[in-house]
């Protein structure tokens, strides 16, 4: 019953879920959020994850983001079994290969855009100059180079989300995970963010995984994965990424 996305050009998938389950709580309050998810993500793909509320989209994203571990099944990233890693090892996978964008932006308050963007580099042990250069380059990519010394309170929602994207891509990750990145933005701002993600996917070769409720936003993706009741219900492929731009 599980659907498996075909890999692009026959290459092995960068991410592979097999029979992944997730159980929250125990006893009477026990709840099975994922019931055996099989999913392959091809390197370089732009994937939108859709589905009704409570269908397990965020749960899946948290597992893919190495923020959480599956209760059962296997999760391989570039062939490595993540479910066997320790908490700190998973943190290092996040640090090296992944970037996150959240619905609520999640920037550090009272901290300039540049310092927010530099944060992952700090944990990577980059020196001051490298942090500055890479940080400014990332801000430039999202079109906010002139706003580098503004704090989140001084930025609009769209700008904050772009700073968050700059922070996610500053380390040049393999995969960018975004859980409802446009959930807090109006449609105009949302389109800007989607164009940015499309650009990163195409020109920076970053695999993008994005949860969204809006078909308009999902239309930017090349692959759409539909969730229902803790399972992958259907995968739509062959979308032309960026098709919406001309419309």
């Amino acid at each position: 019953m599980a659907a498996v996305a075909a890999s692009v050009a026959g290459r092995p998938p960068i991410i592979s879920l097999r029979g992944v389950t997730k159980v929250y709580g125990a006893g009477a309050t026990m709840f099975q959020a994922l019931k055996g998810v099989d999913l392959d993500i091809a390197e370089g793909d732009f994937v939108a994850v859709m589905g009704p509320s409570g269908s397990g989209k965020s749960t899946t994203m948290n597992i893919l983001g190495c923020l959480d571990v599956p209760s059962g099944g296997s999760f391989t990233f570039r062939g490595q079994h993540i479910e066997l890693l320790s908490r700190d090892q998973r943190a290092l996978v996040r640090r090296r290969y992944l970037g996150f964008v959240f619905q609520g932006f999640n920037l550090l308050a009272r901290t300039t855009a540049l310092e927010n963007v530099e944060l992952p580099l700090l944990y990577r042990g980059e020196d001051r100059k490298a942090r500055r250069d890479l940080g400014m380059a990332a801000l430039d990519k999202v079109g906010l180079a002139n706003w580098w010394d503004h704090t989140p309170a001084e930025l609009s929602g769209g700008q904050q989300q772009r700073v968050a994207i700059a922070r996610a891509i500053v380390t040049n990750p393999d995969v960018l995970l975004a859980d409802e990145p446009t959930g807090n933005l109006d449609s105009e701002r949302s389109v800007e963010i989607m164009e940015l993600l499309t650009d990163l996917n195409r020109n920076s070769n970053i695999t993008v995984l994005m949860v969204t409720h809006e078909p308009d936003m999902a239309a930017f993706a090349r692959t759409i994965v539909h969730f229902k009741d803790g399972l992958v219900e259907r995968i739509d492929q062959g979308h032309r990424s960026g098709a919406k731009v001309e419309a």
Partner: protein
Amino acid sequence: MLGTTFILAIRSIRRHLLRSFLTTLGIVIGVAAVVAMVTLGKATTVSVQQSVASLGTNVLQIRPGQGFGRGGGGPRPPDFKQSDVDAVARQVAGVKAVAPQAQATGTAIYEGSNWSTTINGTTLSFLDVQPWPLQSGRYFTPTEEAAGKLVCILGNTVYQNLYRGGEAVGTRMRIAGISCDVIGVLTARGQGGFGDQDDTVIMPIKAVQRRFSGNRDIRLMLVGVDSAYATSTVQASIEDLLRERRNITGGKSDDFNIFDTKQISDTLTGITTALTGVVTAVAAISLVVGGIGIMNIMLVSVTERTREIGIRLAIGAVAREVLMQFLVEAIVLSMLGGLIGLLIAQLVVVGLSPALKVDYLFDPQINLIAFAISGLIGVVFGYFPARRAASLNPIDALRHE
């Protein structure tokens, strides 16, 4: 790794200056209080010891009466006679010298300046009991002493107030209405816990007895004890001798008292040390309270900053890095507090020293200890909140509102 943590901690402190300041206030006050108290206590002890030392070490003071405070009621016990002085000097083993003193008070006048002071009549043996160098001029000669000539040696305070730095030796001043020739000026001994020793005029004892007190009584004997002898043994021998000479028998108590300056010094040092201890203990409690303040605010801060911790974890910080950041933050804060506390303590000591009549004193040891303790407080009270921050689940932390 540590560099990164340090940068993060400093940034976080800078971003929340008011919170940081309030967090560290307890440490600032605690360290300032402890260091100021210990330093002032030490300074007081030093000053007490100095002023007692200026009375002479190995010096016994013998006075008629029963000592401090207990004089009331009954006839005043008689003063000593010259024969008592001679007896103590000759019959007691270990006595190096005995200086009798006859005292009077009077106003000294020179060219319109006047100064009320104490006139101390003594013999040259006072120099054998405890040396007192001259600033200028000379001591009186044995001939002048024997004749009771009206020559006087000025204590430094009297000299400063009457002559204001001018030439005194060779002049003639009046004291209690009687003229005397100034032959010397003594060096300053300094202010002490027993009043100003330099506020005195020294004359041959016979001159004071004849012209000022009108009798041959001796109010005070200063006994210099040979350092080869224990002062307590010498003190006991003198007591026996004087009881016999003053016909005090059986269980009757002495009508004179003998002070051992060393004993006074020890007693006073003991008192100041004890007082310093008590005050320091109180201050130390405030330091502990300050530490708990740090812990409290750090804990609140963990709750407040849950989302921040979630973000850090999500972008790849490992638990140890989050722990270190909070720990370093606590340590930096409390050490900064300690440093500020040390500075305030120095200001307090500088400010209070004159009022307490002690010299400014910098005690590196207590400063170092207090600084180390402030760091330790950071470690101890920062650890618990830091561990809590590090153990948070990133997803829960991110979802935290």
